[in-house]
């Protein structure tokens, strides 16, 4: 073939492609499947930069003191992805931002005054912080940095609560559960029930404990064994919280807990040497185990309680008496709720967001009743992106939800920390991704990103 013929072939091919692009709409449907077509306009006009908020012009390195957090796609159950249905050409609604109100400018630190007051007495008493969240905080991510900062300044030790059956590796605690010398992995050992996740994980009644999960043990049924053994060891990485001197086992009356020859009181703590970083716990009997807490007798104790796939609307599903008893007995002074990301992909309109906000309001009010001595801090979703054709852009409802959560916080007089704004607003997730701070799912932070988000949150929390 002569080069000129090949050249004509190339030209003709490009021309046919151009005609196809011109003829086909951006999206069409063939047998129920969406067919996208490149548009000549988008090819010829290069977008120079990502759309960003005006506050977002900062580089990732200079983003001010706030973290990012968002939950991953919310699925309380493993359900099938909705099948794409043939539908009329639908454009993602352009959502105008909520108009600014006075509530949007309020610095919600003022709603955390009891917590700050308690911190001043942390040299003699315990100040407990319970950090609930979705998958963003799994494995002690983000929480670890907050704990490190608070314990570094106000003292305290221990990594806080861990469940009996740990299915998620923690950065700060090595956790091994054995039965008859055999390590119990996921699906083995005591039956776990969760207040979140698939409905098949629920139990009858609402006794899930403060971690939202319970392990039901019955060692009498285990042949040749009369106890479970739990080895807990705080890792070097945890630094500040590595050493602790008290152990608490949240459980029902039928379960006995021992460390060596020492019985752990049912409603109290077992005192350990000050430099404890490892403990071996023996458990036997029948009943519920809600969690094991490694803590100090003064200073700050911070719990990390991740709930994978959760939207944060489950607290009313946990018995109020259990929560009240825990918050009261452990001197909980701050409850952090970090949710919202799991609902973002499924909220299409402002009405959807409002419905979610009202559900969150009920949870906040419920927790206030359960922990009257504690302040509450809500952390909204981080920036989240979706792909629209070849472009990656922020979900339209993220800024809306962020604004509405801020207003909810003012209404309910709780703290609010905007991860979305901390990341630089719109396009923040993509910038974090490019900086290696967020994963390729544009949902979760990388370890570095989680550390950064945690540091920012700690700075904000400590009003630095």
């Amino acid at each position, binding site marked *: 073939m002569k080069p000129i013929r090949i*050249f004509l072939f190339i030209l003709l091919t490009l021309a046919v492609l151009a005609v196809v692009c011109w003829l086909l709409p951006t999206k069409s449907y063939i047998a129920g499947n969406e067919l996208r077509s490149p548009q000549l306009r988008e090819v010829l006009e290069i977008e120079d930069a990502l759309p960003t908020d005006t506050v977002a012009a900062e580089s990732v390195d200079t983003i001010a003191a706030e973290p990012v957090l968002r939950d*991953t796609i919310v699925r309380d159950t493993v359900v099938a992805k909705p099948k794409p249905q043939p539908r009329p050409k639908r454009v993602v609604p352009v959502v105008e931002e909520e108009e600014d109100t006075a509530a949007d400018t309020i610095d919600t630190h003022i709603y955390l005054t009891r917590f700050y007051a308690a911190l001043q007495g942390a040299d003699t008493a315990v100040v407990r912080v319970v950090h609930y969240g979705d998958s963003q905080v799994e494995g002690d991510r983000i929480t670890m940095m907050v704990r490190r900062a608070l314990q570094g300044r106000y003292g305290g030790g221990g990594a806080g609560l861990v469940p009996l059956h740990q299915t998620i590796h923690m950065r700060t605690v090595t956790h091994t559960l054995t039965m008859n010398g055999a390590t119990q992995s996921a699906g083995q050992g005591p039956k776990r029930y969760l207040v979140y996740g*698939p409905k098949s994980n629920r139990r009858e009644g609402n006794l899930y404990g403060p971690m939202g999960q319970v392990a039901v043990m019955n060692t009498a049924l285990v042949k040749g064994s009369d106890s479970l053994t739990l080895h807990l060891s705080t890792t070097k990485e945890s630094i500040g919280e590595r050493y602790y001197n008290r152990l608490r086992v949240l459980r029902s009356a039928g379960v006995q807990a021992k460390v060596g020859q020492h019985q752990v009181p049912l409603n109290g703590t077992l005192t350990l040497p000050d430099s404890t970083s490892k403990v071996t716990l023996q458990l036997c009997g029948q009943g519920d185990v809600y969690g094991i807490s490694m803590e100090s007798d003064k200073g700050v104790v911070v719990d990390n309680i991740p709930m994978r796939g959760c939207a944060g609307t489950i607290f009313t599903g946990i018995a109020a008496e259990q929560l009240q008893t825990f918050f009261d007995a452990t001197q909980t002074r701050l409850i952090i709720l970090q949710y919202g990301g799991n609902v973002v992909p499924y909220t299409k309109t402002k009405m959807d967001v409002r419905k979610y906000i009202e559900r969150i309001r009920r949870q906040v009010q419920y927790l206030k009743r359960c922990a009257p001595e504690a302040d509450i801090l809500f952390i909204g979703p981080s920036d989240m992106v979706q792909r629209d054709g070849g472009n990656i852009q922020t979900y339209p409802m993220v800024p809306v939800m962020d604004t509405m959560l801020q207003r909810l916080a003012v209404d309910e007089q709780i703290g609010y920390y905007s991860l979305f704004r901390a990341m630089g607003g719109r396009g923040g997730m993509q910038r974090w991704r490019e900086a290696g701070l967020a994963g390729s799912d544009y949902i979760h932070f990388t370890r570095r990103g989680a550390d950064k988000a945690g540091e920012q949150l700690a700075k904000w929390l400590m009003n630095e």
Partner: protein
Amino acid sequence: MGFLRHIFAFDSHSPLLFTQLYFWVFLAIVYGGFALIMMRQTRRRLHLRNVYLMLVSWFFYYKTSGIFLFILATLTLSNWLLAFAVRRARDRQADMRARMWMTLSILINLGFLFYYKYAYFGVDVFNSVFGTHYSIVDKIILPVGISFYVFQVTSYIVDVYRRTVQPVRNILDFGFYVSFFPQLVAGPIVRASEFIPQLYKPFSLSHRMFGLAVFWILNGLTKKVLLSDYLAVNLIDRVFDNPLLFTGFENLFALFAYSLQVYADFSGYTDIATGVALLLGFYLPQNFDSPYKSRNPQEFWRRWHQSLSRWLKSYVYIPLGGNRTLLGRKVNKLWASNVNSFLTMLIGGLWHGASWNFVIWGGLNGIGMIVAKCWKALKDAVWGAVTRRWTLPSGPRIQALKIHLLRVDNLICILLTFTFITFTRLFFRSGSNLDPATANRVAWETAVMMMQQISGAWDSAIIPSFLWQYRSVVLLFIIGMSIHWLPTHFKRWYRLNFALLPWWVIMLIVVAVVMIVYQFVTADLQPFIYFQF
């Protein structure tokens, strides 16, 4: 205006990539000029073609790396000049002088490579060894493709010294050889002896070769977008970023999928380069030969990135002593061969990236090769002893059984090799594109976390849900591996039949493939789904 600016202006964030429309428009424009020059095939026109393509290649490199074009030009000039010095010294029997010129040339080549690629690593190693805290003040940006063209010019100067290649008389021809744009940034590493003779041959492309060129381009594009990018974005990267969010099965699947991804990515790029070069009338050497069909790591490295393997063999393994000497001393053949192979693999690992995790990866491959060689030697020895000691039964049934057993043995070996190679990549993938210190830490931590999940947190109950929810990813993986494992003669058959199609059918197929590829480029991100709570 934006469109033209995108094609012609330098933008460090937006290099010309084979997977972008802009590259193809660029190619169309380039091909227009090329066709115009080749209207007549005189010697002068051929020379003009070479100059034209060299300028186009330089422009392409400028689009990709901006001012680093200077390095390419410097290396071209220095190697071109020093090659004459080497040759002249050789002709005058002044071997020492020839060696000196060659060494100087290699030092210049490697100097650029070490500065731009290994400076951070070198400082990191120095600090570790001597407990110092030096750091590099200026940010060093790695020029695109420097590893490839440095190796290319190094092979040229060594070949001139070895008298296997004549120095190229015309610097423009030599510049064209060094910078030929289809293979400039990602190989294959072309030797002068393979490429230079083509500069003086008239353009000739049969309809069949034209069809093959288009086939390679489509093949590469599909591999790159479907099997590499789609799998990466929708599963693999997520798992490698946060292994603990996923169960053991998901980690394992992602690890194997990564093996397909890295192959599809690299070989896809090479396929496109081969096709584009062919359209311009140049033949590039084969770079991949279904590497996951290999029965042992040694064979794998003969099939994977063949141009690099050949380069390492010729310019590292053999100079190290090959299977004859070790550090200049004559030793046992097996011993020399194994140690030199291992050292070559370490260097090969370092070539892939400037951090310890790549060295570890290279070392693991080296160990794998040695173990496989020893295993084969042991097997042969045992089998030899058995056949000497006993007379084995024979006959048609026994023969059939032997063939059957051989097939099973082949299958096991292929799967074992694939698994081994896949697991070594724990170190390869985890530390890519990071500074050396971070790369080592991240690679190690990621590898540990993934192994921890794979060995412990294996929740088999979620496997069906995972397979269903990620069916597009799983299906692509199965299709990709199935095609990879198709018999070679069958692949050759459908390739040839494609090439023989009428031009307008080929064009329609091109349009259809582009539309399909576009669906994957713009597909919604796979929703994140939890299977374990």
